[in-house]
């Protein structure tokens, strides 16, 4: 569990790391829209090359990204099975035991696989190169204009940053309790159904108890320091946009425009 790659910040020194987090979030949104532009395989090819080069510029190792995608493998197998059962268009690829597999089933599954892979790569490119704290600052800034409509931008950002802050703590805690219960003979992998339920219970109950305790402690600590969400506050860390950020956004928009042209005009 300690090698969860999804959404983890990788402290490296690269051009991508130094970009303004707000601009990176905006760029990520445009890129995610681009994934859903129906530009077919050529479009995905272009997008794929673009994102892989972004990851390389960010000095991330590609096998790190693949590891991030691993949890998806199960989902894709499931998807393939459903597609094979449901989709009955295209030409017949092969059949066995009165069971026919059509080309569209494979085609469709591959299409979705590409889509998911691209989406994971895009989001990883953001989360791996941006400190979680910078990310929440950026979210707060981007939601700022919506404050006028009663969107609690600061509260949302605070909630996200607290949640992010406690993910590693929770993982650590889970591992600790798992080990403690393993010492008491709990076996999460083997045993009868009833034993397994007991095993999971022995993990979840202590986790819940300590999480609530921690939440309460944190709330007390914040209150003791006079935390008021609506208070105006200055920031130690100021976000700054530079020319590089605008160039990056321009390239992304160019790519999105190109894909839309490819999909609807050509």
């Amino acid at each position, binding site marked *: 569990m300690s090698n969860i790659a999804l959404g983890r910040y990788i402290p490296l020194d690269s051009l991508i790391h130094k970009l303004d987090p707000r601009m990176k979030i905006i760029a990520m949104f445009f890129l995610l829209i681009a994934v859903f532009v129906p530009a077919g395989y050529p479009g995905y090819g272009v997008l794929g090359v673009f994102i892989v080069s972004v990851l390389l510029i960010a000095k991330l190792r590609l096998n790190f990204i693949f590891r991030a995608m691993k949890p998806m493998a199960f989902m894709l197998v499931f998807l393939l099975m459903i597609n094979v059962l449901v989709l009955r268009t295209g030409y017949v690829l092969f059949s066995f035991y009165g069971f026919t597999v059509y080309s569209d089933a494979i085609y469709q599954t591959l299409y979705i696989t590409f889509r998911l892979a691209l989406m994971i790569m895009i989001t990883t490119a953001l989360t791996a190169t941006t400190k979680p704290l910078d990310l929440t600052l950026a979210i707060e800034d981007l939601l700022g204009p919506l404050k006028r409509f009663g969107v609690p931008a600061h509260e949302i950002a605070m909630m996200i940053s607290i949640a992010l802050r406690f993910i590693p703590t929770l993982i650590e805690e889970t591992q600790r309790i798992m080990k403690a219960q393993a010492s008491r*003979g709990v076996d999460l992998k083997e045993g009868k159904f009833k034993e397994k339920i007991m095993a999971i219970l022995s993990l979840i109950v*202590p986790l819940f108890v300590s999480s609530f305790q921690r939440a309460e402690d944190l709330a007390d600590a914040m209150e003791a320091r006079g935390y008021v969400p609506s208070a105006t506050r200055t920031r130690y860390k100021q976000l700054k946009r530079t020319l590089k950020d605008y160039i990056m956004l321009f390239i992304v928009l160019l790519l999105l425009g190109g894909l839309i042209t490819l999909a609807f005009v050509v």
Partner: protein
Amino acid sequence: MPIAFEKVSYTYAPGTPFSYAALKEVDLAIEMGKITAIIGPTGSGKSTLVQHLNALLQPSDGQVLVLDRIITHADKPKQLKSLRKNVGLVFQFPEYQLFEETVLKDVMFGPLNFGVSEEEAKKRAMETLTVVGIDPSIAEKSPLDLSGGQKRRIAIAGILAIDPKVLVLDEPTAGLDPQGSKSMMQLFTQLNRQYEKTVLIVTHDMEHVLNYCDNVVVMQDGKCVTHQTVKEFFNDGKLLHELNIKVPNVLRFKESLAKGGMSLPEGISDLQTLAKAIAGRIKP
């Protein structure tokens, strides 16, 4: 066969940017039937070391001998349950592992997992609760309603009820008041003397090492720097200074007395004996 580490190395998250070598070729043999203290600064690999004893961690390299088992990198985790029955590991802040509705059920949980019958488990639970100093009248209460010290005792009872030959405790007195930690240490001494358990204690408290332990293992930077009897250890002033270890007050006081010209016999380690020895000297 006792407990032995042979060139044991352990690396967390190997092959990633977060890779960290916690143990580096540790060679160590633990004497059975004794209380051994494991000391060393934070991050020196103490906790990693003890987690090898019941195969929660398997060595990246080298092998660990525990009782009649050899644990290597290649071992399947499946075959390790019988080992965990013989080596009970109590983690730091074990009170967080309590989850059952009642104290009794929680203590019974371990033995039941290892295939002990319901009645036998209940019998053992009641016995161990008495041993750790918990009044049987609270056996039907929820463990979450009790005080921190009580919870910790119940958690330790939960391991003891499995009846392991070796008991490993990772900082068992952390966060307890002086009175609580003293009686906790006395409990381990009793388990060692009366129930003949081999006890390993990870600790930062030199007073505890001096007063309750037989042997001491010092870890530093993933290596075992020294392993000797407590008596030898606290007599080796040079080594203590090198390892930057805070000498217990009794010994420091004795040392100051010796500097001032009052040399007392060797082997005095507790306050009572020291006081008597001094009293014997100053009487006219």
